[in-house]
């Protein structure tokens, strides 16, 4: 899209929206938010970049192929269930611990996996739509 305003602020928006998406991801356990909606916001950040500066820029910003990102996300979510095998012989039993006063658990790993899957999934078809639209 040929718009000077959008091109100028695209990178700033990208950073802000991406930071916001990570914040939504992290707050999701006790308050509204979570992996799914965080992932949608993250995909929106990359979509803004693609809209303003072209699909190639957005692909390079993503560093990985969207499907690879989906695979990594699925693997991380799967791995978050594995510690339950050791303690309880049951998949997806979440483990909790405390690090410097902050409660941490395998649920954040699961949510991170969901985040990656959503970002990868939405971008895998969004990049193709943008690319075809540009032709």
């Amino acid at each position, binding site marked *: 899209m040929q718009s000077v305003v959008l091109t100028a602020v695209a990178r700033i928006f990208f950073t802000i929206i991406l930071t916001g998406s990570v914040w939504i991801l992290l707050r999701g356990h006790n308050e509204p938010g979570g992996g799914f909606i965080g992932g949608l916001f993250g995909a929106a950040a990359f979509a803004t970049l693609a809209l303003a500066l072209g699909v190639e820029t957005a692909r390079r910003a993503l560093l990985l192929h969207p*499907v*690879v990102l989906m695979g*990594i996300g*699925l*693997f991380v979510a799967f791995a978050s269930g594995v510690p*339950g095998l050791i303690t309880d012989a049951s*998949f*997806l039993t979440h483990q909790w611990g405390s690090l410097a006063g902050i409660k941490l658990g395998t649920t954040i790993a699961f949510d991170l996996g969901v985040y990656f899957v959503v970002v990868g999934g939405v971008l895998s078809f969004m990049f193709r739509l943008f690319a075809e639209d540009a032709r």
Partner: protein
Amino acid sequence: MVDRVVDFSALLVVWPVLIPILAAAVTACLWAWPTAQRAVGIASLVLLLGASLVLVWTVASEGVVAKQFGNWAAPFGISFVADPLSAAMVAISGLLAFAVGIFALADIRPRQERAGFHPLFLGLIAGVNGAFLTGDIFNLYVWFEVMLIATLGLLVINRGKAQLDGALKYAVLNLFGTILFLIAVALLYGATGTLNMAHLARILPGMEMSPGLTASALLFLAAFGIKAGVFPLFFWLPASYHTAPIAIAAIFAGLLTKVGVYAAFRVFTLLFEMEGGFMREIVAVVAALTMITGVLGAAIQWNVRRILSFHIISQIGYMLMGLAIATPVAIAGAVFYIIHHIIVKANLFLLAGAIHRAAGTDDLRKAGGLLKSHPWLAVLFLIPALSLAGLPPLSGFWAKFLVIDASLRVEAWWLAAVALVVGALTLFSMSKIWMEAFWKKPVLVRATPRTVPAAFLIPIALLGAVTLGIGLFADPFIEYARVATAALVDPAQYIAEVLPTLQPASPTGLAEIIENKGAVQ
């Protein structure tokens, strides 16, 4: 640090789902290396087959196996339950996935692999196994959706005009079916307050069939009917199955409709009753019409894949016939029929791919002379074809015999007559393929016959050997079907495995509201 060895056997009932999901994740990560994807795919299918066989062995010796996810006790958590029917379905699907995986080594082209065949295929297998093993009705909906997304991805893997057109029709009709499923689950939850199948099986017999529950039962029948491809709802099947590549069409034909049949069996034996009431007549009429329309639709076709697609519909009618009659003999016959048909139908689709490779065309009018040029292929074709038509001593004979015998015992003469006539017409279709593709002189004579790759013939031979085995040594399989039927008809062990205490510890939320104030209609 780790003072307890990881107990892999405790998760026996969950491995058939976890292995394909993990493999799908790994193959998605290996996006840029197709050879690595292929290796991971085949390795995971071997592991899956092993896990499925161990599961069947355990269930056959110890009875129902159940596992709760996240260590939340039922009915609050999601349970995975393997009773004899589920274990048999998982084993058969594992065998089929392995065979199609080998076939796909020669059939799937690099362009299709780049479009994501392996993650989608493994995701589909994960969804199918999840649907077979789950003990929670909403989780069944989720696995149906996983299957649907993977199926849609596989249908458009070629992105040609016919594929896109077929995929659009498939998508719209199946999406509508899953929406009906969701509405049925919502109504059931509203009436009972729980989603766990074992808990529902405990509560529902004591409740009278309110309009909400009746609507829920009928919507379940409609949703599973769309998924299975029964009479007025099957039109997505002949619109889309013949457009997909053969390996994909084989896994669709073998598994997808049978998941719908399995879900119908599970819901209408565990949750709702088929006895008293109007459901039996409806299902019986639907089954008869399904059989007839399927075989008549196939009789007119000249394209091998279209003939086989219509035959899927016709054979689904036989399985529903067993459900409609609902005596233990009938259900045992239907269970045996499902097991026999999965293997035979997928084998026939793989053979259609081999015929295409050998004759150069799918159109029967242009093919010919394969008996002379590929005699082994002819022999391998006869096994599943005659088994589908129901000739002794192959597995189809026993399956048809059990189902028709059950219908004669309840004096449903018209149903037995329809089944016999449809069997004769099935034989007509199979002999049409035989005569046009194998027997008649070739339309265009070639000096040297085209080669059919070994990766095609190995899975076809494997599945043919299984069909022969089931046919010649039918006794253990029929005995297993009887055990599975006993578990379906009397689900006491199923309920006891999932809900060990006589009453749940503390009913919560909606269940409590309903028990205290009575269900809102």
